[in-house]
């Protein structure tokens, strides 16, 4: 269940309280997020929409521990991440966050399986265990037969599938997707979104996604708009209505 008017007693997986983020540009402070609150439960699929510069990516970066807020807090599974040191935050990201970006960001000199294996290199898994995990992740995204292909030998949709496999291979607590279909044609975008939906419905993954595309956003349980630095609920999508919807 997603809430943007959360109180202090929530037991949600992700809890955001009074989140502020201010940038300085040319000496002028620019407040991107203002006192933002958010609760996201395990298995929720949330889409963030809003005009360019509204702070969608900034919010995603703060939720993923890639950036630190000016004020406020972000807790995930009881871990308050806003006060973690850089080193601890890096370890936390490795365990809890799967990232999917608009332009895939695969390492071009590594094969699909080597790209997917990257997060597992940070674990204590043996080589054969890592291989098993990689094969499973590639099977989930339907790319078993492309394991030894390099990114340049794959289509855009396939590259994004590899990026999703890389994001889920270490079984993170939640996935952050920044415009995951922004670089794809409609057909490929539909396939990617079907895959993301499957991750939520079949594998109970929690997904937070930024998108400009209303059709893509409509696939989420909840669509939230960022306006003037605060989140506004856009209404229940058909999926979220079926699943119980936002509070």
């Amino acid at each position, binding site marked *: 269940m997603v809430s943007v008017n959360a109180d202090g007693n929530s037991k949600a997986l992700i809890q955001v309280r009074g989140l502020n983020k201010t940038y300085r540009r040319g000496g002028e402070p620019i407040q991107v997020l203002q006192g933002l609150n958010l609760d996201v439960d395990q298995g929720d699929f949330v889409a963030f929409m809003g005009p360019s510069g509204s702070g969608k990516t900034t919010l995603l970066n703060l939720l993923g521990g*890639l950036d630190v807020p000016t004020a406020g807090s972000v807790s995930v599974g009881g871990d308050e991440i806003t006060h973690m040191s850089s*080193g601890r935050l*890096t*370890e936390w990201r*490795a365990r809890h966050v799967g990232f999917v970006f608009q332009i895939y*960001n695969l*390492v071009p000199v*590594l094969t699909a399986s080597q790209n997917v294996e*990257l997060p597992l290199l940070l674990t204590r898994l043996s080589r054969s265990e890592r291989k098993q995990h990689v094969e499973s992740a590639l099977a989930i995204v339907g790319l078993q037969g492309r394991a030894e292909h390099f990114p340049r030998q794959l289509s855009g949709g396939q590259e994004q599938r590899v990026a999703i496999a890389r994001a889920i291979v270490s079984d993170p607590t939640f996935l952050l997707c920044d415009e995951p279909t922004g670089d794809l044609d409609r057909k490929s975008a539909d396939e990617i979104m079907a895959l993301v939906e499957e991750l939520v419905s079949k594998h109970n993954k929690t997904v937070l996604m930024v998108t400009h595309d209303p059709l893509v956003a409509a696939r989420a349980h909840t669509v939230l708009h960022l306006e003037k630095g605060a989140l506004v609920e856009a209404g229940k999508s058909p999926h979220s209505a079926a699943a119980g919807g936002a509070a």
Partner: protein
Amino acid sequence: MKFWSLIWANLTRKKVRLLLTLGSFAVALFLFAFLAVVRDAFNRGGGVAAANRLVVINRVSIIQTIPLSYRDKIRNIPGVENVTHDNWFGAIYQDEKNFFPQFVIDPDSQRQVYSELVVPDDQWNNFLKDRTGAIAGASTVKRFGWKIGDRIPLKTTIYGGGAWEFNLDGVYHGTRPGDDETQLWFQWDYFEERVPDRFKGQVGWYTVKLNTPDDAVRVAKAIDADFANSPYETKTDTESAWAAGWVKQFGNIEFLILSIGSVVFFTLLLVTGNTMAISVRERTGELAILKAIGFKNGSVLFFVLAEALTIALIGGLVGLVLALLAVPLVGQAMSGMLPPMVLSKPMLAEAMGFALLVGACSGLLPGLGAMRLRVVDALRRI
């Protein structure tokens, strides 16, 4: 190592650039090895000089002679175990290009004073019985394809001119790495018999073997004091100081070689540093992704340093293998002009140490830059 595939893949992503960088290291290490070999060759005299030997020359210069009569006086100085004497012969074998040193020796004391240069007893005994006999170093024998029993004609330009013929009675070998095996020795009696009168009874220098190296200073002073104010005053030094004096005649070889070596490595550092900086800048986005998915700052620094060190290691090894193959060939071509050219294990280790140091330094700045990279800023730039 589980990160190796990532390091190797990044290393080989631009193959031409990799080959050129490896080539830079290989050429630099090849040159470094050669410079080290030449420096060692010039310093070899000092290196193989015995601590318990003194060399006595004419105080005016090495080309001025001293009387044979000094031998017994020197021998009687307390602390002296033995004395031998030599003359520089400086003759030509067939062609001036075939240079090798020839010495007139005292057979009675040669083997006692230069015990590290070994001649088999049977060959030495034949030499003693043969007035026109000669002993040659293994390197010179190999160079000219001589064999025992060969007749060796030498044409002297110093001692009245004319051809001198010798029978090769034996071959000597050095027992230590770097011992000079290029000399040819023949007997004092034969020399004394054939040289013009003005050279008779005159030796080039004495080599004095001491009972103990601790006596070196005292005995050297005693020898020079004995012949002070005579027509042939002497200058006595330890063998290593004497060898160093020879090297100084060529100029400051050490400084020259160190200067060239420093320039080579500094240039290499600039070239590889620039290459690594470009390589890291090209994949800012990838490094940001690695950091986003949980690779720590130290890991990113490690990857960049590992790439730089791998280039240094492979390039360095290629250069040193080429040097190992080339040094003996050049040494052969330079035979007689320089002491034996040896590329020793310490030199190889020193060269590889320098290569790895340059590799580490060239990777350090780009690596630190990658380490400090803010993921959010880097992702915004993609």
